[in-house]
């Protein structure tokens, strides 16, 4: 089952953040709340899937030595589409995510998948790869944001959890993100050690 393998790769065996270690900047920056993480996931997955489709479509006509500028043009166009659409129809989300939407352009997950997967595989595989990488990215973001929001702001989805409790400021700042990410990597490796590496 090739497609099943692609799907599992994106979510677990080649999880972009925890295994490939790419796309860390938005990961650390937007995970201060779960709803931010969800919107970021949606935006990134959209851009990732659409750019994967296009890159896979034109893979045979692109001269190899100018592939990077072409990929970036495609990615940037989709990012601007997302940005303008959010600005027009979801101004609250646009306000919350601010600069991180335009910064999807430089998210290495997207260029990485175009370069490594979509430019070498069929359109259908590329769609599945885009979706699964997006889900893998999103799951990591949501788990990270869950711990940071509950511990760092004493909130979940913007609602106060325990009235009157003083949250730990460190968790909402950068060190909290690094520490939580470290714990997640540890948990992932423990699970892998126990159930085997699977996949490859």
């Amino acid at each position, binding site marked *: 089952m090739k497609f099943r393998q692609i799907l599992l790769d994106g979510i677990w065996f080649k999880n972009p953040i925890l295994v490939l270690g790419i796309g860390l900047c938005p990961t650390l920056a937007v995970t201060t709340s779960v709803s931010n993480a969800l919107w970021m996931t949606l935006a990134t997955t959209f851009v990732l899937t659409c750019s994967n489709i296009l890159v896979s479509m034109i893979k045979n006509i692109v001269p190899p030595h100018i592939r990077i500028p*072409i990929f970036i043009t495609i990615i*940037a166009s989709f990012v*601007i589409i997302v940005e*303008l659409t959010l600005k027009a129809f979801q101004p609250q989300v646009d306000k919350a995510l601010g600069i991180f939407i335009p910064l999807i352009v430089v998210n290495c997950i997207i260029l990485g998948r175009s370069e490594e997967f979509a430019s070498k595989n069929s359109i259908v595989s590329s769609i599945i790869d885009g979706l699964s990488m997006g889900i893998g990215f999103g799951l990591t973001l949501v788990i990270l944001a869950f711990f940071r929001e509950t511990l760092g702001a004493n*909130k979940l989805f913007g*609602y106060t959890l325990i009235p009157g409790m003083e949250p730990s400021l460190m968790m909402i700042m950068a060190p909290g993100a690094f520490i939580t990410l470290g714990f997640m990597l540890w948990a992932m490796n423990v699970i892998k050690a126990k159930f085997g590496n699977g996949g490859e």
Partner: protein
Amino acid sequence: MIMNRIIKPTIVLAVIAFFASLALSHINRITRDRIDQRILQRKEEALQRVLPGSLGYQIIQKDKKVIIDGKEFVYSVAEKKEADKTFRGYAFLTSKNGYSGAVKTMVGIDHEGKIIAISIIQQSETPGLGARAKEVPSSETFFGHFFGSSNPVDTTANNNNASWFEEQFSGIDTNHKIGILKKGEWRKDNTALATELLAKNSVSAITGATITTKTVTDSIENSMLLLRKAIELENKAVEETAQ
């Protein structure tokens, strides 16, 4: 050789760039009106908030433009009638670069130079830190929301959709320097802290985001200099026409 190395890549890149710009110009045309409308609406709401009709202010002149020291300054004027006296209130949009990007604040000033209210209409500060300048505290708890709350919902906390950071500016005197104290979260019901801050003409900084706090107070002070000059010019013009 030349065909493959130079001409073909150029054509491919040009064709892709052409389609990309075609798509973007279409998206831009679809969304532009709505985006402009949102910005206008946000400005309008902010203006209503800083020169509130509930205090008797009636906006008589919107977006008045004057040139001061070669720079354009835009402000709005409102009037309030109180026992056959007319007081003027002013509102202006001020902007300064904060920790990341411009922080734009709409400020309402009464006839004595005291702040009526402020409203931050645009900022891109760090979420969880500087962005808390705009954060409205939710009186609902998470469990209360999903499992039915027995706590009475605090209706005083959140009636005008302003954050505590914005609310604490009401009553600050712009004729003096606005100080910044690190006192933690300002609360309406914590009258001791509120009066202490007002007596010192100071605001409480957002924890971990003194830069954002300072950006807002600085931008208000800078624009007040311009507003004072604008009012002087206005009075001069009134005198001249009276003569």
